[in-house]
Every structure is written in C-alpha cells, then in structure tokens.
C-alpha cells in the first residue's frame, strides 16, 4: 500500500487518511484540519464565489500577472499601496481592483519576510482555479495560514496529543519529537538536531489570518 499526502485540499489526488474517530471529533479540532490540507476533504462551502457576477479567467490572469510583476519590483515597500482610501463595498459592490491590490500587498509582504519560495508555491497551488481577485486573496491567505500553522504550537501539540497513549519500553510517555541531523548533513545545517517545538507567535498570527478571512468573506 502506498499513499502520497499533499496539502491542497479537496482535490482528487489528495488521499484521505480516513474519517476522524469519534474521539477526535470530540476533541478540539486541530487548526490545520479545518478547511485546510492534510488529506481532509474541503467542504463544498469552502469555495468563495464572487458576489457580483464574477470575473473572467482572463481578467484574473491579467491581474495576477500584474501582481507577479509588481511583486518582482524592488523595493518591496507597501507605502505606495496606501494611497487608496476607498471603503470597500461602496454602492454595495466590492471592488475587485482593490482585492487585486490587496493580493499584491500580501504577496510583497510574504516576499519581504524572506518567503519568496512560499509565494511561488501559493501561486502555483492555490490560485490556479480562482475566478475572482477576492477568491485569490482568500486562497492565498489560507495558504499562508497553513504554512504558519505548521510552525505554531498547535500542530505539534496535536501530534503529541495523538501519542499520549503510546508508551515507551520503560512505561513512561513519549517525551517529544525531534529531527536528527544525519552526520553527512551537519556541516550543511550547522546543528545536530532540530526540536519541532512550535511558536505561540505563529499561533496568534494564524488566529489573525482566520479573523481577516472572515472579515473579507463578509465583504460583499
């Protein structure tokens, strides 16, 4: 039996590891299992549809291409993006141009934090099937959320929770999860082992992304 698990949800090639056990259903849901990857199917309602008739794929592609070009420009300062004071939802319609501007801003900020790799990955994996700039923003934010969540305490805590019934030979509990850096890799990595302990700052960032996504969904 051979399985490949990837993190894009709701696609036919994501392999479902099975339904949650009743116990897991009772437990606090792991943040990453909610509308994200890990082989758990995405609810149909997850996809956000544009509220005013949608954009053509070509328009989205143009906007994303413009975003890519803008993100490649140096310096990556957001100041020039702050001239827009329009309130979203004017005349009851969300301005797709503003969502495109926001997408570019988020992409630039991602790159400023040294994560050009993540930006490229999210463009490839999250934005291919979007049909509006709003959906592109939300999908990109979900991607950021998943990435940050993997560095947070919540995910490692959940992994350790699953090991709570596993005993060691001495009868004691499992004490932790680390990555042993093999001898041949030590010169390259500069460390002997990596503790997979998470960061509470990233958990907070994940919560703020969730709040922002919710606000954006409520916009028109």
């Amino acid at each position, binding site marked *: *039996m*051979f*399985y*490949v*698990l990837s*993190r894009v949800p709701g696609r036919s*090639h*994501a392999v479902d*590891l*099975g339904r949650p*056990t009743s116990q897991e259903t009772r437990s606090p849901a792991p943040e*990453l299992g909610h509308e994200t990857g*890990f082989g758990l199917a995405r609810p149909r309602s997850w996809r956000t549809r544009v509220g005013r008739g949608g954009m053509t794929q070509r328009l989205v592609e143009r906007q994303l291409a413009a975003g890519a070009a803008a993100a490649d420009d140096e310096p990556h300062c*957001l100041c020039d*993006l702050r001239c*827009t*004071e*329009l309130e*979203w939802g004017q005349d009851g319609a969300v301005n797709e141009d*503003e969502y495109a501007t*926001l997408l570019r*801003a988020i992409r630039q*900020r*991602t790159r400023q934090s040294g*994560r050009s790799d993540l930006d490229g*990955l999210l463009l490839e*994996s999250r934005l291919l099937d979007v049909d509006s700039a709003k959906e592109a923003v939300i999908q990109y934010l979900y991607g*950021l959320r998943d990435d940050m969540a*993997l*560095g947070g305490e919540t*995910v*490692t805590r959940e*992994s*350790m929770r*699953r*090991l709570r*019934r*596993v005993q060691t*030979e001495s009868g*004691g509990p499992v*004490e*932790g*999860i*680390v*990555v*042993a*850096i*093999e001898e041949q890799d030590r010169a*390259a*990595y*500069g*460390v002997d082992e*990596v503790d*997979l302990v*998470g960061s509470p*700052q*990233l958990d907070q960032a994940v919560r*703020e992304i969730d709040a*922002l996504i919710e*606000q954006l969904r409520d916009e028109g």
Partner: protein
Amino acid sequence: MSLTLDEAIAKVNEIFAKYDSAPSTGGLVGEEWKAGKVYEAWVLTLLLDRLEQVEGFDVKLVGGTMVYLKSSPGPINPKYPHFRLTRAGSPPYDVWTDVEFATMSYHISGSSGLPGQAHRHELDVLVVKGGVAGYPGHTDIVLGVECKNTGFKKGMARAALGVRRELSLLRPGKPTPFISWPRSSVPADPRLS
C-alpha cells in the same frame, strides 16, 4: 463595518510582524524544511493514532523516549527509536521514518550486496515486518506514505506511479494485514498475507 483597503493591509502587516518575530529554527535549517518535518510528524502520529484506534494495534516506542525523524533518508538504522505494532493474532510490525527500500527491479535483477542508488527509493513513513533492518525489500513493506508539504504537482503523480511500480504489480484485490484501515484489500501483489 466595512474594512478599508488600508485597514486590511495594516492587518496583514501586523500578521507578518508576528511571523517575523517568531524564533527561527537556528543554524541553516530553513523554515520550509522544518515545516515539512512537522507535516511528516503530523502524518506519522495520525497514522499511529488510526492504527491504534481503528485497527486495535498496541503501539509502543522502542529504543528511546523521543521520536526521531531524520534529515536524510537511508537504511533502517536500529540505533534509532521506532514504533512497534502488536496485536493478538497478528505478527508484529515496525514503523520507521525516512527509509529507503530496495526496489522490485533490484529483486528481479538478481543482484547481490547493497542496492545502489538507482535501486533505492525513499518513503517518509513506512510500516514493515517486525525486525527488518537495512534496506527493506519491496516484500517487507506493509504500508508506505510519502508526505508532501506542498500543493500537488503533476510530477508527484508520476513519481508516485514509479514508486508504486517498484513496490508491487497491479493485480486484482488482495487482502492486506489490516482489518479496515486504511484498506482491507489492495489491487497489488506482492502484499503481506
């Protein structure tokens, strides 16, 4: 109250300020690499949880008190702790991470000695017959999982097909050692009976 573009961008900046302030892994270990290992740990523990909860295996960590993932794949190294699965009426199985197996092609070639690079493929998480060490053969593997902390790309499907071909041949459904999870039968041979 509607959100202005300025406010949205400010929120994004606040989020990234927290991201930037989070402690880094240290050394030259990249955050993406670490995230991949966290994902691997997530999948490993999910697998163990299901095997215990659904299949009724007793799961024990042997050889230590810490779970070790590895930075590079290689043979099964008994110096590392690993998980032992036992269940009444069933042979024992071991769960390892980051292990290269000897391919079916290697077996068919009739070669002897350690398999060369072309005759080995990595699996991130694998369940093998109890006591297997070194490079497990394709008949030793009960379950293999490849963890990809990334969006799915077409190349992954091609790679998965290649790895699967080096593990078994397509055959009508054969029973697995599992009662129901993840599957009670697979269209593959060899399989563990």
